[in-house]
């Protein structure tokens, strides 16, 4: 029972990802404008319909998904790296450096994550780089705080003290003995931040400070569709459905319920 739920979410997410990948490979034309085919409802030629410029929504949704997954995963990797390196030095050196890190974590946690992302994206004028930066700025704190706590809790363990006593360098000892022990909680944090990053990216693009048109993103497709909600509700509904399903699946990757 436990294993099955785990697999379903994983499989569904892989399905969404493959759908986006194959969809985009088969229909790479996301930006050519056909004004004669504006706001078409889903039909055989355009399975997801067309938007207000006659662009094919299927390929836009697919590319949007790919971009979203790409940006989210890159941002999570960077945040993990920054947070881990930061907390690594802080917890090993201790003293002033550690207190400095705690203070920084405190400050960054006093902003609601989304606000931080929005403000950074706004000041850096959006675009893929801006979104990446905003996501990293709002995500790295979680990693820093978690890995600092975990590393510190393991520093007094016998195996670590022993390996230091045997003459191993602290750096190596942490990588070899502590990292394998804290993989699991870090993994959970990675998955949760990935889900959060997908939503944040879509929100930023929805507000117009994320991925810039003509590049599609689920967020900016939904925002475009908002103006045509009376005549073409499917424009916003379809990417939203994709967004919801992927977030739901990612969130439940590790959940055993």
């Amino acid at each position, binding site marked *: 029972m436990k294993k099955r739920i785990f697999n379903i979410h994983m499989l569904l997410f892989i399905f969404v990802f493959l759908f986006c990948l194959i969809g985009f490979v088969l229909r790479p034309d996301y930006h050519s404008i056909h004004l004669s085919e504006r706001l078409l409802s889903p039909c055989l030629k355009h399975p997801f319909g067309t938007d207000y410029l006659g662009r094919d929504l299927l390929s836009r949704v697919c590319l949007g998904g790919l971009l979203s997954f790409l940006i989210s995963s890159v941002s999570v990797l960077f945040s993990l790296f920054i947070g881990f390196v930061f907390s690594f030095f802080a917890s090993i050196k201790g003293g002033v450096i550690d207190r400095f890190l705690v203070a920084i974590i405190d400050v960054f946690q006093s902003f609601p994550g989304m606000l931080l992302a929005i403000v950074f994206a706004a000041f*850096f004028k959006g675009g893929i780089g801006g979104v990446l930066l905003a996501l990293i700025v709002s995500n790295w704190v979680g990693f820093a705080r978690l890995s600092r706590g975990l590393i510190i809790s393991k520093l007094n363990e016998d195996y670590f003290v022993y390996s230091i006593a045997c003459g191993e360098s602290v750096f190596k000892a942490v990588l070899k003995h502590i990292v394998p022990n804290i993989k699991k909680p870090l993994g959970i944090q990675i998955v949760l931040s990935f889900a959060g990053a997908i939503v944040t990216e879509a929100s930023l693009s929805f*507000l117009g400070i994320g991925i810039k048109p003509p590049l599609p993103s689920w967020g900016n497709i*939904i925002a475009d569709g908002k103006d045509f909600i009376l005549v073409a509700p499917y424009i916003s509904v379809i990417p939203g459905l994709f*967004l*919801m399903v992927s977030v739901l699946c990612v969130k439940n990757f590790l959940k055993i319920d």
Partner: protein
Amino acid sequence: MFEYFLKRVLNSIPTVLAVVIVVFSLIHIAPGDPVDILVGENATPVVKKQIEREYGLDKPIHVQAFLFFKNLIVNGGGESIYFKKPCFKVVFSRFKNTFKLAMFSFVIAVFFSFVFAFILLWRKGGVFYRMIVFLSTIGMSLPSFWLGILLILFFSVKLKLLPVSGTEGFRHIILPSLTLAIPMGCYLLHIIRGEIESQMSKRFVLSLRTRGIKESLIFFRHVLKNSLVPVIMVLALQLGFLLTGAIITETIFSFNGIGLLLVTAINVRDYSLVQSLAIFIAVIYIYSNILGDVLIAVIDRRVSFEKKDI
């Protein structure tokens, strides 16, 4: 108790200062000339000179930081270029609406999550139970901007019951507050259910039962009180969610609060207003968290009033 509260407030002062510094440094980290960021590239040299003097942009950085502080306190965050008024004046005039919206959705979310939690407890294990749990899992992952559009589609377009946008009356507040309340309520339901169920399986419940105490008494007097602590903790944290969720929700419904103000400020490139808003929201977030902690300490005597390590 009061000492604890005072200590927390005093401890928060350096954090608030640091928040201001982070926001202050934004215009310097961001690409482009700070003057251009503040007034736009097309402003006349006279305006540029004035801004440069006002913010001390030609002076060393610590003087600028000091001027930024002074500006914040004395001049109400400097003049908003778009509204031609001090930033904080604009923020305060809009905050009333956001506060109303946040409270409204807060009440809806808390009320319904408790009601559903009780129903779930009562009907444990059935089809109904599973359905509610499943739906609440979905509800938690609903992105708010999409949920808002679905609500508009259903209530405004299909049923023609509620207005799509605006701020004026009671009818305008229903859809935005539902948009905020549904994901939050689902999350709360999740927490409350887990908390109550874990408390119900504790030893003291068994011992009370063996003493023949009525089930309802056990529930309301003992279990509910114990499970309230994490719930309040989550509630205090959710206030931050409400404030940031309001940014997107207000944009969808053109609801005239600070969220819409932030988006407007970003779109018209009124960056001093963006900075003031960021500080304002962060400060509210910090103090609502402190309030939550104090509330927990009042309810749960087990929480020590000592300062906790992070």
